[in-house]
């Protein structure tokens, strides 16, 4: 009996091919949208988490602010913090600026960072070659390059490497290290890949208005970020006079971004749901038309002994066939969409485990839900009226 029902359902769908394809496209797009949305949401979430894993969730970013823009942090008090506050493990103040750098006739604009020797460890930077600045290099004409900057300043004949000469303004610096490629941290105000790292003293020479406005800190593993931020602010306050200090914690940023992501996913889910409902209405529409056309058939079936249940099963089988097929095609469409998104954004493709079952399940549920009303309507037909239909 089940075999017969499925055979008839498929036969009937094939008989009205155009209508079936229309309904199929509706369900397919709906399911595809839901799956793509869930997958894209997952990809974006993974990407953010990866960035934070790079940066570390135990990081704080400090920024001094004065009435007319950025202020200056008290370097001496700042560098005492790891000794005075148990929550703070390391702290690295830095100067942020920018300008042009030249090598063998190549000129590129980049970010200039004036840093102390702790910066590499606090910002989790690793070296591809050479070494980072040390406390003994403060007045030496040394520079460390980010991976992207080193690549762009290289010429086919002279790759930038340890020992290369980099010209910045009137000064020539010797490269002592090149960083490994790193993800840009959402915390940091600059991308390390496109930066040149100088000692604080050298930075004051090459940056037009050098101010020690920034610092990045790493906390002890068990420290509470909000409490630590409060204590740092309090510790710095006496030395800040009219200025204030903004403290941003990675955890707060993560929480904010996760909230945003949830909202984003919810929004995408809503778009997908609307598409699915439209697909469902499409299924309902073609089922109602099909029932209208097949009233005599329904009447005949009732006359020769079909129960109401047999009639509704017949039409539900058609709706279910449509939505299962639409769901399967939708999975293909959704995964393809997510793949295209991953390729375009350059982010790693991953399929969140719930995407396919949720998308497929929802599309089948929608198809059956919208197929249910027409099926019940068909089964309630009066056989006499149905048989008399012209």
């Amino acid at each position: 009996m089940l075999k017969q029902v499925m055979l008839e359902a498929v036969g009937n769908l094939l008989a009205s091919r155009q209508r079936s394809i229309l309904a199929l496209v509706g369900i397919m797009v709906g399911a595809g949208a839901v799956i793509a949305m869930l997958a894209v949401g997952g990809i974006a979430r993974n990407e953010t988490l990866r960035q934070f894993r790079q940066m570390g969730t135990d990081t704080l970013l400090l920024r001094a602010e004065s009435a007319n823009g950025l202020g200056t942090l008290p370097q001496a008090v700042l560098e005492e913090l790891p000794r005075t506050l148990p929550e703070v493990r390391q702290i690295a103040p830095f100067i942020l600026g920018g300008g042009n750098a030249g090598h063998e006739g190549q000129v590129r604009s980049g970010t200039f960072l004036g840093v102390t020797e702790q910066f590499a460890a606090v910002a989790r930077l690793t070296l591809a070659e050479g070494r980072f600045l040390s406390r003994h290099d403060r007045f030496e004409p040394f520079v460390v390059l980010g991976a992207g900057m080193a690549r762009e300043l290289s010429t086919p004949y002279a790759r930038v490497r340890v020992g290369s000469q980099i010209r910045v303004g009137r000064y020539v610096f010797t490269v002592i290290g090149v960083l490994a490629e790193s993800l840009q941290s959402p915390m940091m105000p600059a991308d390390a890949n496109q930066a040149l790292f100088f000692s604080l003293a050298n930075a004051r020479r090459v940056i037009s208005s050098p101010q020690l406005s920034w610092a990045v800190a790493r906390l002890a593993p068990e420290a509470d970020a909000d409490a630590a931020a409060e204590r740092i602010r309090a510790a710095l306050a006496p030395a800040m006079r009219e200025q204030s200090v903004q403290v941003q914690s990675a955890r707060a940023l993560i929480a904010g971004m996760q909230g945003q992501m949830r909202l984003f996913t919810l929004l995408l889910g809503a778009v997908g749901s609307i598409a699915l409902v439209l697909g469902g209405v499409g299924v309902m529409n073609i089922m109602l038309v099909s029932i209208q056309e097949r009233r005599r058939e329904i009447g005949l079936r009732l006359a020769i002994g079909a129960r109401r249940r047999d009639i509704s099963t017949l039409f539900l089988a058609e709706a279910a066939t449509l939505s299962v097929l639409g769901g399967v095609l939708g999975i293909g469409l959704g995964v393809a969409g997510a793949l295209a998104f991953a390729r375009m954004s350059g982010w790693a493709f991953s399929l969140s485990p719930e995407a396919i079952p949720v998308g497929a399940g929802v599309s089948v549920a929608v198809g059956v839900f919208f197929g249910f009303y027409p099926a019940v309507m068909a089964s309630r037909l009066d056989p006499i009226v149905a048989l008399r239909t012209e």
Partner: protein
Amino acid sequence: MLELEAISRSFRVGPAETQVLRGISLTLAAGEMASIMGGSGSGKTTLMNIIGLLDRPSEGAYRIRGEDVLAARPDALSGLRNRLIGFVFQSYLLLPRLNAWRNVALPLMYRGVAEGEARRRACEMLERVGLSHRTEHFPPQLSGGQRQRVAIARALVGEPAVLLADEPTGALDPTTSQEIMDLFLEMNAALGVLVLIITHDPGVAAQCRRRLVLEGGALAHDSARVPAPC
């Protein structure tokens, strides 16, 4: 076999009530071959719907093989139709996407007969109506007479008590029409099934041993009874 007792049927359209059948009492025995004639509006379709268990009378009693069939609920009624009644329609009403044997087997499928068994019985019945060479054909590939034969095979495959035919020859040319009538007579004789034919055609009615005429919702003539003196 088939007993109708004071059957009335009225329809309510708005405030007005129309009486379509007025107190029809009728007994038909197994193996009878009867025709019902009557003009438009005489109530013959309504009578057929009631006999075929598609409609319920407003008043009266109806028994098939001694079973009170008016007590049944809708789904049970489907079961009764499936077991007791075979329908043949003027427009055949075959399902175009099922081949001949699947069309014939349909009542058996609704009875829950396994596919192999249903197919064997359907092919047997197609052979009896002279279509053993057309079992795999689809209705659009068959002629009108052949389609009606498939429909008759479908009506008989479930071994019903009554074969109800509503204008079975109405869409056929005279030659084919006669072939179909011969088939009814043959099936009636061979299977002993009660055949009830509703028709406009006096030629068709004349071939039935018992002839009934409806007029204004009442039984005006029954050839089995002595004609009323006038």
